[in-house]
């Protein structure tokens, strides 16, 4: 049990270290977020009302798009230098690797989302501070839904032809319910309503997150052996 936790931790440590050292990818993601902001504005036009009405959707669109880029690259480092084989040769329950990777992805995604939120707040003149708590809950559950499946599928497609195309093609349809739930819940929260009004959606999210997490844990060792 302790060994399992240590392995999870060391994978998290290693991934964050690599991420920090090769700063290009995090910086690029953040810059991408900034670009999205402009794109949304240009695509939807100057009508303030229209933009504000679409905000919950745009927010999650931004998260998903950034997630596609960030998550898709989760296992690229492993494919270099046969590190993938190295992981296969390590003893013990391989799901520790999945959890470690998931944790690292959550940290990175969290950072990107925080930046997107701040930018949204500034550019679109949204008051996010007053709803920070409830928004945080929705964000946490939604990001978990994205990252659990995203990490698993990233591993799955790591060595497959046309990975950059296959990864979004596989991930996006599966993410539909998470997207529906998070956008609806975000809408409720941004309108200033209490969190409990979104309870049904949050329960759905939590349930989905649990299902995805369990599947990831159970199937990861099979994915490694490919």
């Amino acid at each position, binding site marked *: 049990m302790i060994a399992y936790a240590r392995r999870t931790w060391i994978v998290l440590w290693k991934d964050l270290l690599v991420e920090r050292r090769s700063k290009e990818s995090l910086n690029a993601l953040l810059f991408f977020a900034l670009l999205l902001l402009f794109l949304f504005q240009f695509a939807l036009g100057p009508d303030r009302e229209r933009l504000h009405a679409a905000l919950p959707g745009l927010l999650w669109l931004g998260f998903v798009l950034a997630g596609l880029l960030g998550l898709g690259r989760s296992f690229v480092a492993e494919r270099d230098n046969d590190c993938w084989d190295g992981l296969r040769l390590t003893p013990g329950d391989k799901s520790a690797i999945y959890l470690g990777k998931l944790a690292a992805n959550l940290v990175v995604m969290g950072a990107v989302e925080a930046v997107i939120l701040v930018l949204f707040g500034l550019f679109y003149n949204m008051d996010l501070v007053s709803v920070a708590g409830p928004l945080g809950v929705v964000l946490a559950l939604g990001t978990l839904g994205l990252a659990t499946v995203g990490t698993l599928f990233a591993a799955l497609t790591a060595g497959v032809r046309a990975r950059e195309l296959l990864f979004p093609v596989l991930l996006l349809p599966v993410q539909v319910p998470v997207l529906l739930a998070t956008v609806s819940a975000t809408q409720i929260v941004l309108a200033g309503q209490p969190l409990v009004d979104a309870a049904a959606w949050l329960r759905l999210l939590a349930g989905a997150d649990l299902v995805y997490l369990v599947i990831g844990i159970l199937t990861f060792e*099979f994915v490694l052996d490919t």
Partner: protein
Amino acid sequence: MSARATRILGGLALLALAVGLAAGFGYAPREAVQGNVQRIMYIHVPAVLTAYLAFGLVLVGSIGALATGRAGWDRLAGAAAELGVLFTGVTIVSGSIWGKPTWGTWWTWDARLTSTAVLFLVYVGYLLLRAMVDEPERRARIAAVVGIVGAANIPIVHFSVKWWRALHQPSTILGPEPSPIAAPIAAALFVNWVAFTLLFLYLLLRRVELARLEDAWVPETRR
């Protein structure tokens, strides 16, 4: 299943389809409000039921492939997915054809059509993935995991779409579901459902056999 048994199944399926056609387009009464176009329900509903059966088999095949590592389970999963996508396509198209005269649009984001469309996308992605991996062992594993995620997601999709639709208050008549189901309609529906299921099983058996032959073919080995 032996070739002869498969052929008999095929014959039965054909027969059932014929009966179903007659039932749907002849025996069952003309619907009061929508007219004859409502008869397309006798294709639409059995198609979606068969699609769900197919995706259930994808789940079974996927779990079997991971648990036993034997190729037969993966062949089942792959074949069932292909047929599932086919029947889902039929569902969507028939739903669309039904919708045009009924609601005036080719597409509407009603709960069932949306769920079915998402299902379609998931399994088309699954088939694309299968096409990208050449080695059978690897393909079986990778596909199995996606198959399991896709199947586990079905109820989640169902609920999320349903609630989403409830939020956005469809002003259209809620769904082409005949409210008290008259006996002749139910009977015709049942016959068609049986026919579609028989057809599906027949096609599945043929497709699995074809996959088995493809895998067994050992080409001229190159060094």
